[in-house]
């Protein structure tokens, strides 16, 4: 497993100076080639911030305050996204890493046709391509995500939510990037549509071999579709493990709480536990482990300093940030 994207020690703040808050705190995250990495966690735990911060698409007042985001090209070179100039970034974006934003309606330019928006990104990154080639590619991409080609001349408002979402996916894949980041791409859709899209994505991933960072609240979806899951809490990654392993046995009390909070559609009715207490205030983070005030298993060291993300002795293929699971 070779990593394609390595986020190291990334910190992202909103605002600078006195009133800034740290929404993402020294996060380490590795995305391997051909893998779907699920990112789940509490609302406001910094999932979106992490995704946009790493690609430097965070709107003001967001600023990246440290770390590095290393991208390993197929050729074996390594570049740091955080050190790129604007021009480099422009060339890099979409051709290597593309993003599907949360709201598809708002992601599409309302006054341009689907074709125009699909082709302009190709034109930008492949200036040598001819117009006909671009159109052909755009049509191909639409077919790939299951939209009829005659929709090329449609405007975004003429498409349903699901179609728009798929247009965005088609656009994200148009340049065959190595990494696709998706931020809650299906939250607003019904499950039928959601499944259609997810299956399409899985299929495309197998065909094209890109890697996906998939952000969602829907743990069931993640368990079903992702290879690995990372759980965020209070601006940090608290646990990272292969999907099934996590589902079977989570190490971090927060992940555990999450997994005991969602109802299952099938199978016997489980007892839903939930997590007592309320999310931390970013302005006033608890000293030590952010989850400690809500943690049923909190003990002395938790209140002192935040636990580092380590490979626990018990399960070396996963990482967890909890004093209950000290490093090997």
């Amino acid at each position, binding site marked *: 497993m070779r990593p394609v994207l390595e986020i190291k020690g990334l910190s992202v703040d909103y605002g600078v100076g006195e009133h800034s808050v740290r929404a993402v705190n020294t996060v380490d995250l590795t995305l391997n080639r051909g893998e779907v990495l699920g990112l789940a966690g509490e609302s406001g735990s910094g999932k979106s911030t992490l995704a946009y911060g790493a*690609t430097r698409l965070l709107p003001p007042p967001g600023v990246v305050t440290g770390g590095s985001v290393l991208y390993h090209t197929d050729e074996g070179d390594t570049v740091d996204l955080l050190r790129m100039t604007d021009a480099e970034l*422009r060339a890099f974006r979409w051709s290597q890493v593309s993003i599907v*934003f949360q*709201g598809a309606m708002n*992601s*599409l*330019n309302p006054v341009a046709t689907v074709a125009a928006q699909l082709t*302009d*990104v190709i034109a930008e990154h492949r200036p040598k391509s001819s117009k006909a080639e671009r159109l052909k590619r755009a049509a191909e991409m639409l077919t790939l995500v299951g939209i009829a080609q005659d929709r090329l001349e449609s405007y975004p408002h003429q498409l349903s939510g699901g179609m728009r979402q798929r247009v965005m996916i088609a656009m994200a894949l148009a340049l065959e990037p190595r990494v696709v980041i998706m931020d809650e791409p299906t939250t607003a859709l019904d499950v039928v549509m959601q499944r259609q899209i997810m299956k399409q994505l899985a299929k495309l991933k197998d065909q094209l071999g890109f890697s996906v960072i998939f952000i969602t609240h829907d743990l069931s979806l993640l368990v079903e579709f992702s290879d690995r899951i990372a759980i965020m809490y209070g601006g940090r990654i608290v646990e990272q493990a292969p999907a099934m392993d996590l589902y079977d046995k989570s190490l971090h009390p927060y992940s555990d709480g999450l997994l005991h909070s969602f109802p299952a559609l099938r199978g016997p009715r489980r007892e839903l536990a939930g997590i007592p207490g309320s999310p931390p205030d970013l302005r006033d983070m608890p000293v030590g482990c952010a989850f400690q005030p809500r943690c049923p298993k909190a003990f002395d060291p938790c209140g002192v300093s935040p636990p580092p993300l380590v490979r626990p002795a018990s399960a070396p293929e996963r990482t967890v940030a909890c004093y209950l699971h000290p490093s090997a």
Partner: protein
Amino acid sequence: MRYFLRRLGFYLFTLWAAITINFFIPRMIPGNAVDSLLAQRRGEVDSQAVQSLNILFGLDKHQSLASQYWHYLVQLSHGDLGISFGNFPEPVTTVLGSALPWTLGLIGTTTILAFLIGTGLGVFAGWKRGTWVDGLLPATSFLSSIPYFWLGLICVAWLASPLGLPTSGGYTVGNVPGWNIAGDILNHMILPALTIIVTSIGGWLLSMRNMMVTVTAEDYITVAHAKGLSGTRVMTKYAARNALLPSVSGFGMALGLVVGGTFLVEQVFSLPGVGLQLINAISGHDYPLIQGVFLVVTVAVLAANFLADLAYMALDPRTRKEG
């Protein structure tokens, strides 16, 4: 179709209402055409002339206002705007015909130019928000707050002779019209055009800038950046294209008001345009001409609105017919 008919009905109603108001309001001014002719000539017209003038202008027959109104509507329906008192016996259409080209030529052109330049700069200023460009905004506001007639007079007094430019709009008086008149007219238009453009760019600039700032916060702009598109492309195709929409109807209004809105420019630059005619007509109780000008203005505003509607539809696919 229903929608279309409704629209049409709306335009017709507005037209009728405006015509009616335009008919009655001038008649509220005390005095009449003959009185004002006498007043204007300040004693030069013999008081004995009053009677012949009354007959001349048809003011001797004491028609009721209602029948005058009816008469006016009937006349209008034949496309006849009547005869101008002040330019007796020229028909109003002739007077307007000679005045309109000046107004449209100068003010129409400068309105369009100012819109284009102002909007273009506004796109830039909005895009570069937070940079040194913001520092230019107060200067822009300052320029746009200058009364244009004042600036016009200053230009006439201080710029014209150093630049060797004529001070009046229009053309060199006494010139025999010939093919070279175009150049002469252009030369005369430099100062007025400059004045109008300088004072009206600012408004467009500021409103476009605000729209740009709003639009750049939209998700699709971030997406466009994420797509790695060049800055220029994001600015024009994504941001400006969307930010332009609200300006379109404003521009339509401005175009419509070209005809009636700027008599002071015409006065300052002695441009024989519609605005000047209107002011002369008002002070001369030239009802037919006042009504004629108002009619032209009304039609122009409605037409410009209509065009703006069309342009808006063309620019914003969301308002177009659903597939």
